[in-house]
């Protein structure tokens, strides 16, 4: 609860990895199958990294960990990412 944000807060971190603005991408939860815009997910951020959680079941959808000279992206909680528009 301490530092609960939403997907808007993770936009910069995601756009530093993916070549798109990511908050209007729809993410489907691998645990409960609910789909939400990344902007409308629950996000926790700290110096260690970023966790994007499902707003329905709290499952971790995306984790980004920062370590010295590298970042780790864990997407296994996200079944599908849906990008709209022409890519």
């Amino acid at each position, binding site marked *: 609860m301490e530092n609960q944000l939403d997907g808007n807060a993770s936009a910069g971190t995601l756009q530093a990895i993916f070549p*798109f603005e990511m*908050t*209007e991408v729809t993410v489907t939860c691998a645990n409960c199958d609910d789909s939400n815009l990344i902007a409308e997910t629950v996000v926790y951020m700290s110096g260690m990294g970023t966790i994007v959680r499902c707003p329905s079941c709290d499952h971790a959808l995306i984790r980004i960990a920062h370590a010295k000279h590298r970042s780790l992206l864990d997407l296994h909680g996200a079944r599908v990412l849906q990008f*709209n*528009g022409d890519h």
Partner: protein
Amino acid sequence: MEGAEVLGRLNWQFGEVVATQRETDRAKSITLSVPDWSGHRAGQHVDLRLTSEDGYHAERSYSIASAPEDRPRVTITVERIETGEVSPYLTDELHEGDKLELRGPIGGYFVWEASMGGPLFLVAGGSGIVPLMAMIRHQAASGSSVPTRLLYSSRSLAEIIYRDELERLAQGSKRLEVRHTLTREAPTGWAGYHRRVDADMLREVAWPADKHPLTYICGPTPFVEATATFLAALGYASQRIKTERFGPSG
């Protein structure tokens, strides 16, 4: 509405502080000149990165307060959190001529452009006014005719950010209505609300749901969640309510 735009990956760059302005005891606006700034949309933010001598980084997001029409300059407004790591540096120690590392513009969801129409309902708690002010300034600068209502919750009269400018804009316009609520002290004779935003207040101030308003709520996380829940109960369609959470309330 547009889908995810191809903008390219974000990179860190340096901006120079070209002006600062005190807004309240705790809040300060900082205007940056950023070389190669691509322009922004009202509601977007930047990420700032401070680096200490030992190489340790602290990153925080700050909404852009200025209208896109002010390009190439970008203004942010920062409220000092007493115990904070980053905000006291920005409000108290940063001066004209200093360089700041930033990336942006960031975000595509919590954005309003005049072409998106309305009527607009904006609800701000504390520094949550910042991205909404960019929308109001954009509305004024673009000559948009979209009717707009702002409900702005502050602790006290002295803590209202952009108070004079909001008053001026509302007086000079038939499109903008501004209502304030104060959650702590209110001066005697105060004509605004004097309590936290609640369902009754929203019923009085918000557009009727059958006008299909487009709503933006921004502020501390608990404020945003309470307001969105009240509006849903008033029949507001969730797809037309956009929210942005700034974190814990002070």
